[in-house]
């Protein structure tokens, strides 16, 4: 019986490998980008075939940004990484898999699309949440994932911090504000997707801190009659970066196609795909075209407020950092 199973299994395996493209790329990405990359991969494969006559198959892997970076460090054969924040790619670069100047190899800090952090609330906004201040009110349950494991959660945290620092003008007050905010968090999921599911499907919490694209997606999936998006007047400019994993791409001989893949993001078509999936496009023309889709939010960057990712990571999310101090209280 076991032999028969083996034969069947071998047959199935053979059948699945019968189709093979000229090139095969593995894109290791974070949680919310699955739909985005399904669209993008299809468009790129068609464009690439048209231009070079070669077929390319792109495989996707999604998970928490940190876990995904860990897998690449441990040997997951990613040709390109498209993660939630620069720090995770820096961690891969620190192991020599990606050139340390990766962020300069592509335009705009190597982040072809951006997003921001918004609030998703239940229909009718029963708790009247309009701005960051409303999140620390007693009795408001805020859903956000764990910044230690989730890239999105780190953007959430830094957005709150940035708001408080700008409003109250001191780091101490910002720390107090963020500590108060996390007092209102009943569930700390490991990933952004987990948090959305907790809020949307399981009905926990009054407000979800989410990527803008993730909030739009949830609204599309579950209906505008159930959830509303509240964009705070001030938030952070989230720049999810992309990079070629040099060591893997060179080893597999896919550097050419991998470079073409990432560069395609900066084309009009690429930018259009980003905009259609509710990521804010970088291209001014496309941005203008989709202007009405995105709320006007005053955006600050991580460099402005925190002096870059390495510093922010060190201060806030390292062991014994500010986030740990908040959770020790």
């Amino acid at each position, binding site marked *: 019986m*076991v032999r028969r*199973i*083996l034969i*069947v*299994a071998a047959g*199935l*395996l053979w059948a*699945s490998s019968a189709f093979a493209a000229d090139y095969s790329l*593995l894109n290791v990405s974070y*949680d919310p980008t*699955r739909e985005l990359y399904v669209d993008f991969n299809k468009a790129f494969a068609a464009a690439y075939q048209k231009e070079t006559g070669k077929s390319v198959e792109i*495989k*996707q*892997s*999604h*998970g928490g940004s940190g876990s995904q970076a860990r*897998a690449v*460090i*441990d*040997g*997951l*054969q990613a040709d390109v990484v498209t993660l939630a924040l620069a720090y995770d790619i820096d961690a891969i670069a620190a*192991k020599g898999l990606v050139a340390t100047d990766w962020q300069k190899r592509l335009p705009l800090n190597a982040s072809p699309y951006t997003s921001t952090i918004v609030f998703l609330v239940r229909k009718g906004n029963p708790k009247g949440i309009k701005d960051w201040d409303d999140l620390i009110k007693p009795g408001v349950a805020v859903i956000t994932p764990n910044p230690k494991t989730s890239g999105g959660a780190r953007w959430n945290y830094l957005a709150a911090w940035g708001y408080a620092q700008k409003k109250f003008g001191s780091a101490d007050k910002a720390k107090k504000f963020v500590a108060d905010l996390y007092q209102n968090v009943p569930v700390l999921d490991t*990933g952004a*997707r*987990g948090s*959305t*599911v907790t809020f*949307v*499907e399981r009905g926990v919490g009054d407000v979800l801190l989410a990527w803008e694209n993730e909030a739009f997606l*949830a609204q599309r*999936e*579950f209906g505008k009659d159930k959830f509303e998006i509240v964009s705070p007047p001030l938030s952070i400019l989230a720049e999810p970066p992309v990079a070629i994993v040099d060591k893997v791409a060179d*080893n597999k001989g896919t550097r050419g196609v991998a470079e073409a893949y990432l560069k395609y993001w900066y084309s009009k078509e690429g930018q259009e795909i980003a905009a259609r999936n509710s990521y804010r496009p970088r291209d001014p023309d496309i941005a203008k075209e989709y202007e009405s889709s995105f709320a006007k939010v005053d955006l600050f960057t991580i460099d402005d407020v925190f002096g870059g990712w390495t510093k922010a990571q060190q201060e806030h999310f390292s062991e014994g950092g500010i986030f740990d101090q908040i959770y020790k209280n």
Partner: protein
Amino acid sequence: MTIITASDPAHLSHRERSDRVSDPGEGSSSAALPVGNRKTTVGIARSNSRTEPGPVRFVIIVLALTFLTVFVVLPLVVVFAQAFSKGFIAYFAALAEPEAWSAIKLTLLVAAISVGLNLVFGVLAAWAIAKFDFSGKTFLITLIDLPFSVSPVIAGLVFVLLFGAQGYFGPWLQAHNINVLFAVPGIVLVTIFVTFPFVARALIPLMQEQGTQEEEAAISLGASGLQTFFRVTLPNIKWGLLYGVLLCNARAMGEFGAVSVVSGHIRGETNTMPLLVEILYNEYQFVSSFAIASLLAMLALITLVVKTVLERRLDEGQAPSDH
């Protein structure tokens, strides 16, 4: 010692036998019935000393059944209710997705390899342990049992430490372009680890109980070792062997934590069914997620049915008239 007592055929056969003996003796399949169907007062009078008053019995049964219903039956029902919540068409559409197919194929492949290898190992180990006496036997059995109590996450972690690019053998493997982690070999390895004890532990008590006389007789009649095994031992242990393979297979197809650590989650390539359940769940595709989950739940149910049948067979196998 036994970790899975459920797989200890010696116990089970005992249970079946004493069931049969005690059934007429207690004289009241209705004794515990909360309603109606009173039997002779004689039986009850006699059993007064040996059983509890009616209300106590009633409370115990209600407690037991409520507990099992809430904690065991309802979760199972939820799986199917959710899977079919949008109707049959949505259910089968979810299962027809290429990603679902590749997960099913991968799960079957991984289970086939790891169960096959553990089958061979289990028989070898059981032969050495059950048919011979040596010092350190208990220690050896403890080592075989160890994966039962090791957290699946740790099982995944140790293979990352060994075969990860930063691990002990990682650089060598990379230099030779061999992918273990985040590919089928890694998933197979952790699955073998977590299912390691099942076959051996199902066979050892059975083979110990059967002793060595039949085999010794065969040898003295001139049979070779292999002939003895295939003609004498195997027919005696076949149901126990199937039993071990069955439980081993259920665990192999269902393993989540360990596989999650070493999978890499490549769509359509390294996601097994349990991993796909989590992924789809996190993508708001609840029907799809529970559809895959329902396949795994059905696997569990089939496992239980076959297990019950096998236990009967094992019980019969105890009777000398069997062969």
